[in-house]
């Protein structure tokens, strides 16, 4: 397990485009933006549809499952919040149930609950919601939830 993240050292400032998204995490929902006109889904929650330019939007609650598309192993902390967390892995996850305008799967990032030794491109993951110490903010993280036959790991 990676070390603890000290979320008290980051002040998250929601705005009018994002406040509902942060509200969703408090109910353990990982929301993505969805266009009411064409159905396109995206994240982070930009305020217009990149597929059809509509600004008539709703939220889609993803099942929070996906596959590791890529990752970084952070060994040198920069933010004070992560000094006790290194080394940790940030996963770049392709969600199973959301697609971008060009048809490929929507990607989201987040700190893995797993150690570097366990992480590999191609593994299935699911979202877990982590308390931050501030009841107004719950952070999504990702956890390996199965195996896959075709995986790739950085071994240098």
């Amino acid at each position, binding site marked *: 397990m990676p070390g603890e993240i000290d979320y008290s050292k*980051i002040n998250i*400032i929601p705005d009018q485009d994002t406040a509902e998204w942060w509200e969703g995490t408090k109910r353990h929902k990982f929301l993505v933006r969805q266009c009411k006109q064409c159905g396109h889904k995206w994240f982070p929650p*930009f305020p217009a549809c990149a597929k059809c330019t509509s600004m008539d939007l709703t939220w889609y609650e993803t099942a929070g499952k996906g596959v590791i598309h890529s990752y*970084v192993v952070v*060994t040198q902390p*920069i*933010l004070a919040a992560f000094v006790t967390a290194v080394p940790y892995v940030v996963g770049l996850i392709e969600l199973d149930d959301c697609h971008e305008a060009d048809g490929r799967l929507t990607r*989201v990032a987040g700190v893995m609950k797993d150690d570097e030794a366990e992480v590999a491109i191609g593994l299935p993951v699911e979202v877990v919601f982590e308390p931050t110490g501030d009841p107004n903010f719950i952070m999504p993280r990702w956890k390996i939830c199965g195996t896959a036959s075709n995986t790739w790991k950085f071994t240098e």
Partner: protein
Amino acid sequence: MGALTDKYCIVGVGETRFMKASNRTPLSMACEAVKKAMDDAGLTAREVDAITSFQIADSTDVANVAQALGIRINYGSVAYSGGSTTEALTAHAIGLIEGGYCNTVAIFRSMNGRTGRRMGGQAPGGVVPPSRAEGDAQFYMPWGFTTPAQHFAPSAMRYLHDFGASTKSFAEVASAFRYHAGLNPKALMRAPMTIEDHQRSRWVAKPFRLLDCCLETDVASAFIVTSRERAYDLRQPPVFILGGSARTYADNPAWNHSRLRPYLQAGNFARQRVWGMSGIRPEDIDVLSIYDAFTYTVILQLEAYGFCAIGEAAEFVKGGRLRIDHELPTNLSGGHLSEGYAHGVALVNEVVRQLRHRADDSCPGWAEGRHTYDRQAGCRQVRRARFGASLGWGTETRGSCLILRSASA
């Protein structure tokens, strides 16, 4: 060919020393860089009438620089943006002069990039104090990635996966540029670097090691753009602007989460326009600068602008191909990785010096264009320098470039 190809020139270049701790204000450094570029061109304060700059961290305003140097400007502005803005401001300058808004534009970037506000926002000496995650940062700071190294690493990791490459290709880039820095008296890091030195350096954000990262630097650098008619009267051989691109974006530029495939970055979208406007091809380039925030950003741009095919750059850079006296001499100053990080301006300055045949190396006659080509004796000038390019990177999603030719080409 572009409508304005060959009508505008870079006529002066200058910079402060590349420093780890300047103990100076960005204003003082900016004044020195602009003054040196003016002196280099043989321009007086009355003959420069526009100043532009850009910033995303430490900086100074153009109005202060103009006032300090006694330049009365007809145009001045500071763009809020980072890497790849250098080449874009050159395009702005051409448009402004062509439109009659001003005659001669000084472009600078000044920053205490190491002892002032550092990229990623950290204070001098270490980690970021409690930080505000607002705007974009809501969706990266608490998610575990903040600095450029952390942002670009997943793209690099996927590249290694997709193309079966290893980080030895990154080492080839770092070691070639370090060799050039050894020929550049201005460079911060001049000691030779082997492939093994790179591979032994400590991890920062896998797959990046310390020697994949550019040098946080205190420096100001500047160059001056004017019309061909004015350029002929000045001190240096003019370097002509053939074309370029100015902050071209990839589609879907949501770079924090929904990142692009590494081989669909901004340069891929600019390539056809750039070479069409310039009237030359990648194979015509004799001296190249590539925005080397990281070794990996060089790999991506070689592919994006057509110097090799997508997925081939890791192989392309092997065997010293980017070294002086080899096929594609690149970052002859040492670049951001070894000369020092100047946010792209110094990369343009090096191409200009090479195309003038006046690389400021250890040759006694460099200022008059007399070079020995003896690398052991510290000569950095390429023998044949007709066409050059500077490729600017501002994340995978945005980029600029500048295609130049020497007065004798």
